[in-house]
């Protein structure tokens, strides 16, 4: 049973049914599942092992599923999964906070092949994109094995959220907590493996995750123009994953990055984006410049990465209108 059917079942609150055709736009099964209704006919899923044609709008109960293991969408999706290291699951909740948009993503672009909380898969499979949430507890050999395995089995590793990108609040851990008192040392995943894309923030925003997912899809499956656009969009997020936007002194992950990387470099122009992006209100603007309460800072990196003078791409922002329309169109159910 695929994830999509699980979610449908959750919305319906009744026995899971597998629709043999999703082309019947006039009969969306539930409001939440209406994306299926608009699916183009050529993308109608094929049921493996299916012998005879079933009328388009007939529903087949899963109890008759023994000879049909999985509904396999024909559309050219990428495979992705969520790898859970030491994090609070807030990043995964942020994925889900795309609401109906998540269904569109799963319906059209992404096969969700691994996820401890949602997909019934025990071991990390091969996948195109691994979204890793949380930092790695080096006192836990399983975590270390899993992050190594994630790198080996994924084409693209995305550090989803501040713990994976920079350690975030797990940098403050000192051990001594139930039920694993010896767990005291946490490192960003980039300390152990090469990371391709950063999505910073605590939690990362649903819209940022959505944008990166659409861009990743276009990069892997789009035409040449779409690949160029998606590549330009992802370039800064790949650069921060390589610590590329020059010396900031502090791994892109606390308010001091603003001071060292932006103000000390003579780049701040008092827009206030840092203060708006701080999830813990640690930044106030004093005479136009950020004043950072470092006792409050959780080292999420949102302020530095939100700053238009930390990194800025004219290629991308000059096309903001077109990109946002592309994303809206891509996310249309």
């Amino acid at each position, binding site marked *: 049973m695929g994830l999509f059917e699980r979610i449908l079942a959750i919305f319906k609150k009744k026995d899971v049914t597998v629709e043999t055709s999703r082309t019947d736009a006039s009969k969306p099964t539930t409001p939440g599942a209406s994306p299926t209704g608009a699916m183009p006919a050529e993308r109608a899923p094929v049921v493996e092992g299916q012998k005879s044609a079933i009328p388009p709008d007939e529903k087949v109960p899963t109890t008759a599923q023994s000879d049909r293991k999985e509904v396999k969408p024909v559309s050219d999706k990428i495979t992705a999964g969520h790898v859970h290291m030491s994090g609070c699951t807030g990043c995964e909740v942020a994925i889900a906070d795309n609401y109906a948009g998540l269904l569109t993503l799963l319906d059209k672009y992404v096969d969700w092949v691994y996820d401890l909380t949602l997909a019934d898969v025990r071991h990390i499979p091969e996948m195109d994109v691994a979204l890793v949430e949380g930092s790695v507890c080096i006192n836990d050999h399983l975590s270390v094995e899993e992050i190594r395995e994630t790198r080996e089995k994924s084409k693209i590793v995305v550090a989803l959220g501040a713990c994976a990108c920079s350690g975030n609040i797990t940098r403050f851990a000192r051990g001594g907590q139930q039920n694993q008192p010896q767990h005291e040392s946490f490192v960003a995943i980039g300390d152990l493996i090469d990371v391709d894309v950063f999505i910073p923030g605590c*939690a990362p925003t649903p819209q940022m995750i959505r944008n990166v997912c659409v861009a990743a899809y276009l990069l892997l499956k789009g035409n040449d123009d779409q690949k160029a656009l998606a590549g330009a969009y992802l370039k800064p997020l790949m650069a921060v994953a390589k610590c590329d936007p020059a010396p900031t002194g502090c791994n892109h992950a606390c308010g001091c990055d603003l001071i060292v990387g932006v103000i000390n470099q003579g780049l701040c122009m008092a827009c206030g984006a840092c203060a708006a992006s701080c999830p813990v209100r640690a930044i106030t603007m004093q*005479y136009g410049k950020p004043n950072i309460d470092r006792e409050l800072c959780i080292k999420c990196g949102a302020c530095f990465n939100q700053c238009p003078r930390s990194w800025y791409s004219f290629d991308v922002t000059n096309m903001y209108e077109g990109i946002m329309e592309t994303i809206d169109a891509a996310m249309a159910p």
Partner: protein
Amino acid sequence: MVQDNFLGNYTSCVAARSTNRGILAGSQDGGIATGTLAFALEEGIIDGAIVSVMDPSEPWKPMPIVATSPEELYMARGTKYSLSPNLSLIKEATRSYGLDRVGIVGVPCQMQGLRKGQLYPVGLRDVPDKIALAVGIFCMENFPYQSIIQLVEDHGNTKLENVVKLDIGKGKFWIYTERGAVVQLPLKITHKYEQPGCHVCLDYVANLADISTGSVGTPDGWSTVFVRSKKGNDVWAKAMAAGAFETKPIEEVKPGLDLVTKLATEKITKNRKSLEERAKFGVGKGLRNPYI
């Protein structure tokens, strides 16, 4: 759609001024920023707007607020030549104020921050889809608050409390006092007080705004207006139909678009050079270039 290397993309450019006398009374030039936002607020195109008003604690110190009534918008009329971090309220406007359609005024770099924030909302949850109207203001450079004190009180020998209007135009920095005295400073004096971050800015006329406006290019009391995006065109067409502004073709006014192009070219050329100088600032070492 006109595509210009220095003036950005725009669908139309006109000279305009508000037809609302109340707005014109306290506005810097043609009252375009206040007029457009007030119109959008009355029409329900926006639920409120982030604008810059005077901070009551100190004279001529700007402070961003979320204005949700025409009265609050009117408080923001006129240019304040100091730093107002308007983007700092962009998430607040959608959260604490609960606005679904946010308007915002800003200088070019703030428009850049806004669009970066919409495309890469690292910490701006639910903000990207709620920006309904962004009005950009032409900007050559800005001044920290201490610079304004230094210029007005030291160089201009005028008490800041007594100033009723500050302006930059015709190559001078103008200080108007409540008793009618006018002080002018040559811009040669003001340059060293500019905010350093302005010297890497590659935008003069707010290329990323929906509608951008400024005094340069049009006679006193009028403003130059670039209408740029779909949202900008939509609002501007409605405002024109409602008679919110009177306009003249930009070709028929003096000094016209040529001056705007000249100043934009000067600013951007100068700042490109300063970016090159930053790259070899030290010995075998340079300063960061934020543009990738």
